[in-house]
């Protein structure tokens, strides 16, 4: 017999009885199947999490949007107004404004562009158009209807009913609304064009033209220095030659007058009190003379 034949009989040896049972193998096999499936599921989760973390990291590492792009307002200010922007090129910002850390407001970046005064000066201050307090009181009530969950303060007029202010408060803090009026010459459209850059916008304002020819112009959020605050203007150029401008601000009424650099009492909300959409709904109401 050769060695290869010897090897061929190597399986036919006397052996002790096996100790492994079918149940034991099935149990271990099922555990292995479960572990494989759990591993596959965890692997999928790991990949998804990895993609999410990677996308977030890349998103944060990406350069910021150009400063002349929209959506630079506070996060809670929604650009949901359907009005078209005035069809004219945007302007190039000369810088970006951010509130100081001590200002307590939201961390926002606002592109800065120069303020371009209207060619025909507005009649403000001593020559401004006084408004009937009853009319302003009605607009205040309209604001209350728009934001019933907020507390609306009493209207204060100064001086001689030229400027009116009232507070708008909720759990985020107190902001305010200011209203003033002036007379303009010419058509509402021409006057609105003339005042397009008067608040320092970089992008053209959003505009709504009413059936009667009145024009409502919603400007962008702008910084208020030296208060380290923000404001937004809504200008209503009525058919009757009256410009009514309403501004919402993230500080209390009276803060402008009372402010000096050493006064720490200026308090600011992180956002403006009204969203774009809420704020814009005041325009047609005011245009209709309600």
């Amino acid at each position: 017999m050769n060695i290869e034949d010897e090897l061929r009989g190597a399986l036919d040896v006397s052996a002790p009885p096996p100790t492994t049972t079918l149940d034991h193998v099935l149990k271990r096999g099922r555990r292995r199947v479960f572990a494989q499936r759990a591993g596959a599921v965890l692997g999928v989760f790991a990949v998804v999490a990895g993609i999410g973390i990677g996308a977030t990291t890349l998103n944060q590492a990406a350069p910021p949007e150009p400063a002349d792009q929209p959506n630079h307002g506070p996060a809670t200010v929604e650009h949901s107004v359907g009005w078209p922007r005035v069809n004219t090129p945007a302007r190039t910002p000369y810088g970006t404004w951010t509130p100081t850390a001590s200002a307590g407001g939201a961390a926002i970046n606002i592109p800065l562009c120069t303020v371009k005064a209207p060619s025909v000066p507005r009649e403000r201050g001593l020559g401004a158009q006084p408004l009937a307090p009853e009319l302003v009181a009605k607009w205040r009530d309209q604001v209350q209807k728009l934001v019933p969950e907020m507390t609306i303060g009493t209207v204060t007029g100064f001086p001689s009913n030229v400027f009116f202010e009232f507070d708008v408060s909720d759990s985020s803090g107190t902001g305010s609304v200011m209203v003033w009026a002036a007379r303009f010459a010419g058509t509402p459209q021409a006057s609105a064009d003339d005042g397009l850059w008067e608040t320092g916008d970089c992008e053209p304002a959003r505009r709504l033209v009413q059936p009667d020819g009145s024009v409502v112009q919603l400007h962008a959020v702008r910084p208020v220095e030296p208060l380290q605050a923000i404001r937004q203007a809504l200008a209503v150029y009525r058919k009757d030659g009256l410009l009514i401008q309403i501004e919402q601000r993230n500080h209390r009424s009276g803060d402008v007058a009372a402010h000096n650099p050493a006064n720490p009492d200026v308090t600011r909300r992180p956002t403006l009190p009204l969203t774009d959409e809420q704020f814009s709904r005041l325009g047609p109401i005011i245009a209709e003379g309600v």
Partner: protein
Amino acid sequence: MRRDEEFSEFFTSRFDWARRTAYALCADWSEAEELAQNAFVKAYAKWPSIRRETAEGYVRTIVTRLFLDSRRRGRERERPVADLPEHGVSGGFTDPDARLNAALQQVAPKQRAALVLRFVHDLSIEQTAAELGCSVGNVKSQTARGLATLREAYGEPVNSECG
């Protein structure tokens, strides 16, 4: 479940065969049992993708590779014994099977695996190469060296098919 039924039938008919194959490789019944058990556990996990006609070869491949892995990692099993043996491991063989297994243990693990697959399981050189995951030439050289070592370890002049 159909999976369990089919696997149970396969286990019942082939576990002892797998255990004896493992024993031919490692010459230790305890380790052979463990190698065979691990091979069947792996086969259970893959059972839906294993064709019934190839299941035997699948388990044999796992047993062989588990054995080679254990030797490659240097994790030779310890063999705890209650009493010292009567004689040394190199002498005193009266059982021809034990003598052949002792001689096989003198052959290097991969050469031993090649011998077991080629002659114990009567696989072709190509089949052996596929199961070991190496080339045909490698199987030929491993087999030749393994046979030479085995003849020397066996201690008696024996004929060889290879001349």
